[in-house]
């Protein structure tokens, strides 16, 4: 039994979640403050993967990062970086595809905090960064944990988008969800069952842990 797809999936989900946490917090904060046409456009772009067929997103990423032309060719020539059929391509696709799962809950939580909390901090002479770090983030911890788990779990289950940009290269881009599909194609149901059961167990444990750590205060992913 080849467990490399499981390790690869966990590695991909961990890296994607970490990168999205770093990028998602400031983006969610920026989106939570006021409205403008530009913000609406950015928010729509971030939300698109929720409704866009994964294969469509994967197709456009494949076109954009193809080493034969445009951006992909420039990245290849200038930095010797290739996103198509590589692990970094999976990270990039997952980053884009899972972004709404990180940004959405954090943005909602920030919007629900009373505006007077930030004001009370500013009036003490604190900067926006100090206020964000010491007042806002500590008061939305349950939502941040929910966002981390949702992002991680969603990345575990990616299929269409990673198949389009990464293909099915064992040890490089063959993640667990693709391994399940591949096993079924080969009529190897025991292997498909093992991969599925491991993914199911990991996801279930993660969701349970959110409820335990947040003392049943975390929002259900279905809410």
């Amino acid at each position, binding site marked *: 039994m080849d467990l490399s797809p499981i390790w690869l999936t966990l590695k991909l989900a961990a890296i994607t979640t970490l990168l999205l946490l770093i990028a998602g917090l400031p983006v969610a904060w920026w989106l939570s403050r006021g409205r403008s046409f530009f913000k609406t456009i950015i928010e729509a772009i971030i939300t698109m993967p929720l409704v866009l067929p994964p294969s469509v997103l994967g197709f456009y990423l494949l076109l954009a990062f193809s080493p034969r032309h445009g951006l992909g060719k420039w990245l290849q020539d200038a930095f010797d970086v290739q996103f198509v059929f590589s692990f970094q391509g999976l990270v990039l696709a997952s980053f884009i595809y899972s972004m709404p799962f990180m940004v959405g809950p954090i943005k909602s939580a920030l919007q629900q905090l009373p505006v*007077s909390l930030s004001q009370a901090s500013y009036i003490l002479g604190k900067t926006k960064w100090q206020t964000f770090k010491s007042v806002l983030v500590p008061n939305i911890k349950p939502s941040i944990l929910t966002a981390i788990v949702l992002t991680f779990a969603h990345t575990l289950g990616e299929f269409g988008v990673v198949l389009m940009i990464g293909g099915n290269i064992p040890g490089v881009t063959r993640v667990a969800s693709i391994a399940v599909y591949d096993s079924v194609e080969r009529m190897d149901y025991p292997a498909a069952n093992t991969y599925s059961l491991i993914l199911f167990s990991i996801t279930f444990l993660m969701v349970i842990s959110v409820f335990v750590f947040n003392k049943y205060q975390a929002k259900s992913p279905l809410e």
Partner: protein
Amino acid sequence: MISIAIEKKLKVYQGRQVLKIERQFPAGSITKIYGPSGSGKTTFLKIITGFITPEKGKILVDDSTWLDTDLNINIPPQKRMPGFVFQDYALFPNMTIREHLEYATTDKDWIVRLLLLGKLDTLIDHKPIHLSGGQQQRLAILRALAIKPKLLLMDEPFSALDPEMKTELIEELTIVFKEIGATVLIVSHNPQELEGLVDGELLIV
């Protein structure tokens, strides 16, 4: 001396009205602000803090200009730093009483003094959720005083205190106001609440 002249359009139940105030407050004075609900008392305080910008106005505090719409001067709240007691207290749910004051100032002796003043010295490790309404309100007052502001703005600061605690606290606050040389503006609904304490009144209608 604090000199304020502002004009701000307000959306009210009846439609629109203009909040127009022109007033000087002598340094170290205590002024009571009163008026009907929705007349713009809180808006007036928030204009002074810099959270709300009026269409037209000038705010001079001692020698510095906080706001001058003609000259495009609008100092941010972080630089104005008046003390402000919010009507909803705006306490930080993640911080204990001690952490609230340590977030505002590094002066340990001043923190001890404030805790004794607010009678919160035995509750320093409690978070706001575990405090009564009166204790929360006192913490909001102490946090505003922690930065030793030259201008202190208080929005209904004694509404949750029992009469005995209120009288005692007001007496002690008067001493502290003098000590730090603060000019104080207090919004209050209760006509008798600040009797004998204030030097002047401002009616906003």
